[in-house]
């Protein structure tokens, strides 16, 4: 009984924090739902024409949505190549001191602030552009490379953990049947932990779609239309929200930012729900 006061205090503070979070979330959802419309997304362009990229959309947030999706897909494809191979190497081939050193490297990489990653790639593009590559200006490609660096540690860690927790009997199964370790990996281990890998990828996707600081420095602009090549500048949802919140002149512009925020929130929450569903299934498998 003597702890009732503390328990009450804990409850009050938890509810205060929760109510703050839900206040912010519900505010965005409420404002977004009340202002979102097809016209806001596509402006006065024909919807089908806009989606098939036959006609350019100028005022709406459609280019920003497409830009965010393109960014996610590109950075994800880079991150999968580097992240999966690093994770596999760390889990299966690396031993001893090399392994702990590489682990520390990835831990340090995970703590690099996103704005520093952005600045690094900006610097890289300035140097390389001056000396060797004409095309290497702030662009979709540069942003997705920077985002890839940002989400790389998560994918590496996740791949490593999910390969590590495979039971020993399954690990040895293929080797006993005469597979070499590469075949064992491709035909047995990776399919066995595919759900874990997928849930880690979704988690990383969520991180990639929300980050603003990186894309701000590496090529996102306020109005560029749908990017046609990976070397062009592009629009993205988070940057659009930031830009409007700084520069809005009337209520309709602000409303479109609320719409963009709602769409971004929907993308983030659906990725979160997908991850959770996958993880629930994984838990069933191991129980």
């Amino acid at each position, binding site marked *: 009984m003597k702890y009732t006061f503390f328990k009450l205090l804990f*409850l009050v503070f938890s509810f205060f924090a929760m109510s703050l979070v839900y206040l912010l*979330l519900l505010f965005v959802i409420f404002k977004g739902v009340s202002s979102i419309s097809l016209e806001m997304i596509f402006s006065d362009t024909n919807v089908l024409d806009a989606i098939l990229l036959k006609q350019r959309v100028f005022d709406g947030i459609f280019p920003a949505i497409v830009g965010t999706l393109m960014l996610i897909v590109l950075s994800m494809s880079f991150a999968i190549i580097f992240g999966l191979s690093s994770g596999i190497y760390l889990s299966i081939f690396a031993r001893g001191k090399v392994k702990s050193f590489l682990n520390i490297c990835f831990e*340090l990489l995970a703590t690099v602030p996103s704005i*520093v990653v952005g*600045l*690094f790639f900006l*610097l890289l593009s300035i140097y390389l552009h001056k000396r060797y590559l004409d095309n290497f200006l702030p662009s979709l490609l540069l942003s997705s490379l920077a985002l890839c660096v940002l989400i790389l540690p998560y994918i590496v860690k996740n791949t490593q953990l999910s390969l590590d927790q495979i039971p020993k009997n399954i690990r040895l199964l293929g080797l006993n049947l005469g597979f070499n370790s590469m075949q064992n990996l491709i035909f047995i281990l990776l399919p066995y932990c595919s759900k874990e890998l997928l849930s880690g990828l979704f988690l990383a996707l969520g991180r990639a779609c929300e980050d603003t600081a990186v894309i701000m*420095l590496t090529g996102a602009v306020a109005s560029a239309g749908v990017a046609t090549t990976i070397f062009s500048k592009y629009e993205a949802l988070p940057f659009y929200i930031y830009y409007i*919140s700084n520069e809005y002149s009337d209520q309709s512009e602000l409303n479109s930012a609320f719409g963009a925020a709602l769409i971004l929130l929907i993308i*983030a929450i659906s990725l979160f729900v997908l991850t959770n569903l996958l993880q629930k299934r994984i838990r069933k498998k191991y129980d």
Partner: protein
Amino acid sequence: MINKIFSKSLLLFTSFSSGLVFSIFFLLGYICLDLFTLLDISNFLSFDWDVQKDHYGILTMLFTTIVISFLALILTFIFSFCICSTIFLSKSKILILFLEKTVLLMSAIPTIIYAFAALFTIVPFISSYKPSSTLSILVASIVLSLLLIPTMSLIFLNIFRTLAKKYQRVCMNLGLSAEDFFFKFVIKNAYKNIIQGVILALSRAIGDTMIVLMLAGNALSFPISVFDSGRTLTSHIALIFANDYDSMAFKAIFLCAFLLLSSNFLLIMIIKSIKVK
């Protein structure tokens, strides 16, 4: 043979991606060294940033970064500790589920959404009490504290549960109630992990850009109270970069970036050096 090629190519990818962190660190460090040959170091270690007068002091931003991070950290610690204790002590399953799912959900919410929503809710609320302040250090720290809750809470919950799994039965058999067990045993034994969680949250607080950029006001003057507006290192980087690339101001922000990076590395090293059971 093919096996060897496979593992070697994996090693190639791995060494490339793990080498990135060093290339970032050394490139920024190299530029900072280059910077000190152009201007005296005392030029940067002052409180005055004025491009016209060739003053590039970054101490004001450093101070603001520290103030905002620590304010946010205190708030987050209170919130996370209360949330985790409630989850641990409560007997209502619905409450536990609600709190746990919300904390998980919070880790998925984009930071820009927090900042954007706070611009229209918390900012007017505070300025209705203190009309002179709109965007301020206080608002930024409150919102930043919400962002840090998942990072800290998940670590706290993890250690609370691990300890409970190991020792709760023993303590119950010795006659402790669940509350006794929590206040007398768990808190005393979890303090090292709690410190780790706090440091990890601090490194996130220092590195965050969007919330402080949108809510702290970005004034260059030295902040005197928490209701003043201030500019942190991260938002300074974000605001300066648009200038031309050869200017001294653009080069000076690499010092900010290097400071951010090295302080984060230091924090991680501290976390690593804390031995946990």
